[in-house]
């Protein structure tokens, strides 16, 4: 449905997007993760048509929307809508007026839709209030409602939940996801909150320095990161590198690094791969404890313990893996990048 074909975007000699190719199917929900300045917002802006691209093509259902330096379909004619990081409301207009900016109440079912959207984002109570008197979170919800009210074919969300409180966000994200799935609306959510991206997306896009470095399902990318950068971007992890990894696991280990998620390490009494360790610190995180343990080899490991935490700092423990395959071999990023560059050059020559 939406296709990005080698899309590039450069501003002031700085490449914001480098040959990005991706596909978003109808009704698919995508979470885009990446560090600050990696090109996530630029990606949304070129899809929406707010910025021109310097190379490649943006296509939607076979129609080319944008080519190098040209918008073939005007942004307002694409049937997309976008929620910006800043709500950008009419400050002196009411909530209702702001929601109706994109489409008036003329068409059939508009009143019901307005009512539904207000309920979805929880704005019914403040519908007659002037926008600049609302809190930051309420303003952001108005911006969400404004985008949803126009019934877009593709919804682009640029960190829209940043100003929302966590409790509300935790209940709203599943509601929004269900609403979009029910309507078959595709959506791309840009965020730097990994939990939010994992909870929202059917698939995850990882963006680094303007490149789309990985796509895949949330579980796949979380469980099988290819390198340390991906592993750390998606959650807490232990990376055992070089000699330690080789000694701990197996002599035939191909990689120079291994990643283990803290929840995949257990405190045990059996002989284990990870061996003996001393408990350094244990901090309570609500649903679980995060324990820092130092192995006899001097390697510090994070361990997630669910339920009671009977041990104190200084206690001796044994560390084991839940399953041997939970230790994931990581590639060295530099090598992989060299290989990919080599492959690209090869394709170019062909």
């Amino acid at each position, binding site marked *: 449905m939406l296709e990005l074909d080698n899309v590039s975007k450069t501003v002031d000699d700085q490449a914001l997007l480098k040959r990005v190719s991706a596909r978003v199917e109808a009704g698919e929900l995508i979470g885009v993760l990446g560090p600050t300045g990696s090109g996530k917002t630029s990606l949304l802006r070129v899809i929406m048509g*707010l910025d021109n691209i310097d190379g490649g093509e943006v296509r939607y259902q076979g129609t080319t929307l944008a080519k190098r330096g040209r918008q073939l379909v005007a942004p307002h004619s694409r049937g997309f809508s976008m929620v910006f990081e800043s709500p950008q409301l009419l*400050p002196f207009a009411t909530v209702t007026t702001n929601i109706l900016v994109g489409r008036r109440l003329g068409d059939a079912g508009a009143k019901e839709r307005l009512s539904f959207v207000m309920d979805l984002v929880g704005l019914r109570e403040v519908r007659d209030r002037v926008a600049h008197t609302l809190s930051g979170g309420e303003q952001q919800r108005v911006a969400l409602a404004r985008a949803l009210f126009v019934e877009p074919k593709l919804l682009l969300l640029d960190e829209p939940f940043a100003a929302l409180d966590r409790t509300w966000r935790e209940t709203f994200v599943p509601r929004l996801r269900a609403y979009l799935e029910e309507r078959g609306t595709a959506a791309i959510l840009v965020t730097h909150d990994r939990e939010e991206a994992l909870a929202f997306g059917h698939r995850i896009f990882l963006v680094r320095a303007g490149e789309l470095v990985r796509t895949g399902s949330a579980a796949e990318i979380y469980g099988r990161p290819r390198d340390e950068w991906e592993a750390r971007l998606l959650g807490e992890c232990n990376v055992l590198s070089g000699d330690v990894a080789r000694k701990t696991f197996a002599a035939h280990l191909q990689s120079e690094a291994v990643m283990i998620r803290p929840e995949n390490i257990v405190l045990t009494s059996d002989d284990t791969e990870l061996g003996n360790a001393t408990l350094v610190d244990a901090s309570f995180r609500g649903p679980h404890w995060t324990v820092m343990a130092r192995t006899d080899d001097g390697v510090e490991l994070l361990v997630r313990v669910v339920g009671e935490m009977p041990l104190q700092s200084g206690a001796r423990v044994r560390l084991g893996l839940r399953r041997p395959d939970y230790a994931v071999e990581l590639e060295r990023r530099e090598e992989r990048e060299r290989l990919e560059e080599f492959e690209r050059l090869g394709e170019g020559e062909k």
Partner: protein
Amino acid sequence: MRWLWVILCAVVAAPWVAIVARATTSCDLSLWAMHAVELGTVPRSLLLAAAAALMAAVLGAAVAYQVSLREFPLRRMVERLLVLPLLFPPFVLAAIYRRLSFSWRPVGVRLDLESSAGFIFVMSVALFPYVFLLSRAALQSHGRGCIEVGKSVGLPLWQCSTRLVLPVVAPAISVGALLVFVEASGEWATASFLSMPTTAVAIHQLWFARDMPHLAAQLALLFIAAVVMVYAPFARWGRGRRMESWGPPVAPPRPEQNGGRPAGWLRLGLCATPVFAGFVLPAAYVLFGFVQTVATIDLSSLWASTFASATLTLSVSLICLAMALAMVAAAGRGGRWVLRGLVLSYTAPAMVVAVGTLVFVNAVFPDAERYNDVTSFVVLAFAVATRYSVFLLVPLSIGMALGRRGIEDLGVAMGLSRTQSFLRLQLPMLRPFAVVGLLLVVVQALREVPLSVVLGPFSFRTLAIKTHAYIDIDLLPESSTWILAMALLSLYPILTIENLLRRSR
């Protein structure tokens, strides 16, 4: 600082007390039956000013929109040139265009500058930069964000502009238009050159030509009441519609190129026309006049006028700074009322402030011998400062309101005393507001005419007065040198204001 604040209140109130006293000493209203013409100048002045403000608003907002959000050839250069009409006071433009309209008659072009349309044209061309500067600042901060939001919910560009951009920049356009309205409604020199019977002209005639000061005072009060009636609904509408409630700017301005090359040239034409009318043509005329008369320039007179202008401007600036200091130090102690008083002083025609001050001075100095040149200059400087201090004090009060509590809290959190907090945190934040305000005061003081004519010492002839005197006896080419000197003195402040307001996005 409280004593300074009390003096400030007294200075602001004095002309008004004097005018009210003078207006009520003779309550023979039957005299107005014979002066219905003067009475009729009130609605006429308001209508003329409203038309000029409307035209300036349309012109200023349109060019601000183009230079802020659209790309076209020579955009950056035109953007800077658009403030330059402020170099010439409206009466200079009026004189130049009146002369040009005479010159063009033989080739069949009929331009009657001495008409309502002529007055509106001159005032809007001379003053549209007020609207341009304010609306450009608002557009550069929020215009692009509005357009992107509109596009993102499926609105075409024209609907983005009407439904989103216009409502957001409307307060800025309105403030600019209100400035034009106030300036145009009280304009005396331009109106008298173009033979327009406005209230300012009528007050001047009643007071000085017909020796009817009480009628002049009554007319002044009536006019002020009418202006306040226009201003009050605007003030109510504008309450709370300040920049701080717009939220932070979201994206740096990046003008868009669309519509192709013809559209770009059309935009250039639209933006260059007011530059041509308000700056290029008058500047060319003045330069031509300067070349014609350069051999006959009286350098000592030029130097004396430049010195007089500089002295007046410096004195007015110092008084305004003292007022600002008093306002900042005594913030909250009736400051809002003093500010309102100053706004009233500005909304009244300068001629009204002049006669009010004159009445007050006559009451204080009944013995004419004690009212010497020095006293006269001090009175003039205070009157000019009282009238134009709003340009400094209003931006400062906005600056003080912006995040004041946050700054105070930050000062406490950093362990700073109140004075240290003011000097290290608040003052740097207020500086841009103060610089812009002070430079506007400088520009206004340099081109001020009515107060200097009425209150100034006999031998004290500023560049503006000298220009006015030359133009008054139809010696426009001879006035070129003085106009040029006035423009050169105003150039740096105007360009600095333009630069500061452009960077303030």
